[in-house]
């Protein structure tokens, strides 16, 4: 057990792990992404109420779900970095921020495109949409804050504090459709009781959610590898690794 903990805190081990796994996992997840998209676009049935515009669900919901999950990853890394001062936790926090920002942006953009034919408006200042916009600003804030400090140890601490304070936004996003009167529809998939969605639509949606999670994991490794290369360019282990 402690050996595993030790390995995850060791930059050379993590770098080698990323190098070994990315060439396999990236093509697999990208293929799954293409197949899942084509399934949602061409093979899933049309919604009787919304018509074909509902097909945006297969990217909108996975992006939004994983954008929230990604925030947990970033905030947890921030907490570890603050409490135990593990430098690799800073790196993980920095690796998660741009992915989370991209996923949140995708959720907002596809939501706007879905909103136009469904609600008649690209944008409404709805509780769910506004709290997702705040999530985007939190991710971008962490990226900008890290760049703003010359001293990277202080920068990492400031980013960790910001990401931890930002977690108050997460339950607001989850509960926004219940707490406020909202245009945004409530969740169709429920963990307890039957889902309000047919299996022919549920399976491609679950497939895409899993794929977006997997892509998040691969992107974490790609970003970790890049940040480790940058941070350890004069480390002996990295030189040895690249000579081999």
């Amino acid at each position: 057990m402690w050996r595993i903990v030790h390995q995850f805190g060791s930059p050379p081990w993590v770098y080698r792990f990323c190098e070994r796994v990315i060439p396999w996992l990236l093509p697999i997840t990208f293929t799954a992404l293409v197949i899942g998209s084509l399934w949602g676009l061409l093979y899933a049935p049309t919604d009787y109420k919304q018509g074909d515009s509902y097909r945006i669900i297969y990217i909108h919901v996975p992006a939004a779900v994983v954008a929230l999950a990604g925030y947990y990853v970033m905030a947890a890394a921030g907490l570890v970095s603050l409490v135990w001062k593990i430098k690799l936790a800073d790196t993980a926090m920095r690796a998660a921020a741009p992915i989370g920002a991209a996923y949140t942006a995708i959720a907002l953009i596809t939501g706007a495109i879905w909103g136009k034919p469904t609600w008649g408006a690209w944008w409404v200042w709805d509780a769910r949409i506004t709290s997702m916009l705040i999530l985007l600003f939190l991710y971008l804030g962490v990226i900008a804050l890290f760049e703003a400090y010359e001293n990277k140890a202080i920068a990492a601490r400031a980013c960790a504090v910001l990401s931890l304070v930002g977690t108050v936004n997460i339950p607001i996003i989850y509960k926004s459709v219940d707490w406020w009167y909202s245009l945004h529809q409530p969740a169709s998939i429920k963990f307890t009781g039957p889902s309000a969605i047919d299996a022919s639509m549920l399976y491609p949606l679950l497939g895409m959610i899993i794929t977006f999670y997997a892509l998040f994991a691969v992107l974490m490794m790609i970003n970790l590898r890049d940040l480790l290369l940058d941070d350890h360019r004069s480390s002996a282990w990295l030189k040895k690794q690249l000579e081999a």
Partner: protein
Amino acid sequence: MYFDSLSAAMTMGGHGGYVWSAYAITFLVLGVVILRPILSSRRLRRDIRSELARKATVSGVSNAS
């Protein structure tokens, strides 16, 4: 396929423009976040390797003389 023809799949009863552009933007954004760190890593690895090679030749020359 759920649609009768490829043109029906493109137009989607008037919603095609919305749906296809949403997917296009998603793939564009994902393409950028995938490729940016990969290209950056490639450049970093090349820089570190060329630095190592330069040092190796410098020490090699000094040993020979």
